[in-house]
């Protein structure tokens, strides 16, 4: 990732302290078990002008504030994978010393990567279950859609592209029309037509309940992991 950074024209270094000394806004992007060590390392260089933003999964604001100087402006953010294609979904929460200015700065900066909203910290684990892991649910669904098409005689590569475009298009309509998904679903279902027949199959398979359970399981797991 260092070389990637260099490609983009960023300065790179192997020294964490140097990063903190040269910057105002500092993003912490380590694995959870590495973080305490890193915080101890940079703590002496952290000043009142710094804004520390943690992307580290499962590490609470309380923990961050404990390991940094007490007046440090801390924010915690949970992104998701599609940030890399500027279609991400991110939520963030602020610590006790972070104010509206810091919140606005973060939001302005990250809106270029997708949807970015401030939330109470308790929503962060839910966001993990919904959107962090949620991306994988969508990949699974896309794969299954394509397989259905292959079963019916379409070549796999084409089916894959169409499946992805279908998801993209449906999501775009949801976001742009602001309509309730149930209404949009109804709009596609002509009486006695193909769509309602297919939806009946999905309902028979209790798809809705299964998806709800998936979000629940991921959220619960995020909570459990945060405790350790």
């Amino acid at each position, binding site marked *: 990732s260092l070389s990637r950074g260099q490609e983009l024209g960023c300065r790179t270094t192997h020294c964490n302290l140097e990063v903190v000394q040269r910057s105002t806004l500092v993003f912490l992007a380590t694995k959870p078990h590495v973080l305490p060590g890193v915080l101890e390392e940079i703590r002496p260089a952290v000043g009142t002008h710094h804004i520390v933003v943690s992307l580290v999964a499962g590490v609470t604001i309380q923990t961050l504030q404990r390991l940094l100087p007490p007046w440090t402006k801390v924010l915690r953010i949970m992104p998701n994978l599609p940030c890399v294609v500027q279609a991400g979904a991110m939520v963030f929460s602020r610590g006790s010393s972070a104010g509206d200015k810091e919140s606005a700065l973060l939001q302005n900066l990250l809106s270029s990567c997708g949807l970015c909203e401030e939330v109470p910290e308790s929503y962060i684990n839910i966001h993990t279950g919904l959107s962090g892991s949620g991306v994988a649910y969508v990949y699974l669904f896309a794969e299954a859609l394509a397989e259905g098409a292959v079963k019916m005689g379409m070549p796999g590569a084409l089916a894959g592209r169409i499946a992805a475009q279908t998801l993209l298009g449906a999501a775009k309509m949801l976001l742009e029309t602001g309509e*309730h*998904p*149930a*209404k949009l679903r*109804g709009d596609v279902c002509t009486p006695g037509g193909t769509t309602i027949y297919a939806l*009946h199959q999905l*309902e*028979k398979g*209790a798809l*809705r*309940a299964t998806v*709800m*359970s998936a979000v629940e399981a991921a959220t619960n797991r995020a909570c459990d992991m945060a405790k350790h």
Partner: protein
Amino acid sequence: AGVLAAHKITASSPDTDLPTVSGLRKMGVNFTVSNKDTVKSSDVLFLAVKPPIIPFILEEVGPDIEARHIVVSCAAGVTISSIEKKLCTFCPTPKVIRCMTNTPVIVREGATVYATGTHADVEDGKLLEQLMASVGFCTEVEEDLIDAVTGLSGSGPAYAFTALDALADGGVKMGLPRRLAVRLGAQALLGAAKMLLESEQHPGQLKDNVCSPGGATIHALHFLESGGFRSLLINAVEASCIRTRELQHLADQEKISPAAIKKTLLDKVKLESPSLSVASASKVSLFTNKSKKN
């Protein structure tokens, strides 16, 4: 229901012991045991008999049908063309309307649809609509949708009664007295239905409005989804619709023997006919309110 004076209504039944008969008489409806007399003194004829009996009723009253008569059949699965075919031997242009209603007409919250036959005019349909709108919702449809309507709103009250029974059980399990549980369950469904009918919003949106994050309702809904609640209801409507089509097919073939019908007691037919459904069993009491004909 206030649309028609009772003395303008005539009802006929071969069996005078039925509870509906005394009910009708109390309302001031004219009563006779002769179908022929009823036809002669009426303009709108409601055929409120079980589907297998329809052909035989038509044979009986056919000769007295005149151009002015509007023949309305509520028999499940009996097509307009089958009625017109039978009547055409007696009257060249019989006015036939087929309708499908449901039991809550009894409390003026019925759901009725009708389809007009070849020789029925727009005014004839409107007349029926006016009559049935006095006991609930009424609208015209294409005849080929009537089976689907049967599956949905014809049988619908039964689905609701089943749901209400179970909801009450849930209430009782959690400590409510039975009567209160039934009362509250029924009111909850009534209120929800009313909200939906009066709202522009999609039922999905109305559902969301009830579900506070992490609250009781969303937990309960998850259970419903896990049990395939939605698909069960879809299956039910589908099954009822398909069965209606089967009944129609059986009726077209006139599978009931004339001997069984000649006995002319409705109870007897109940025992011998396999094709009876809850919907048609209710037809006898259906017309306690407003019927012109039996």
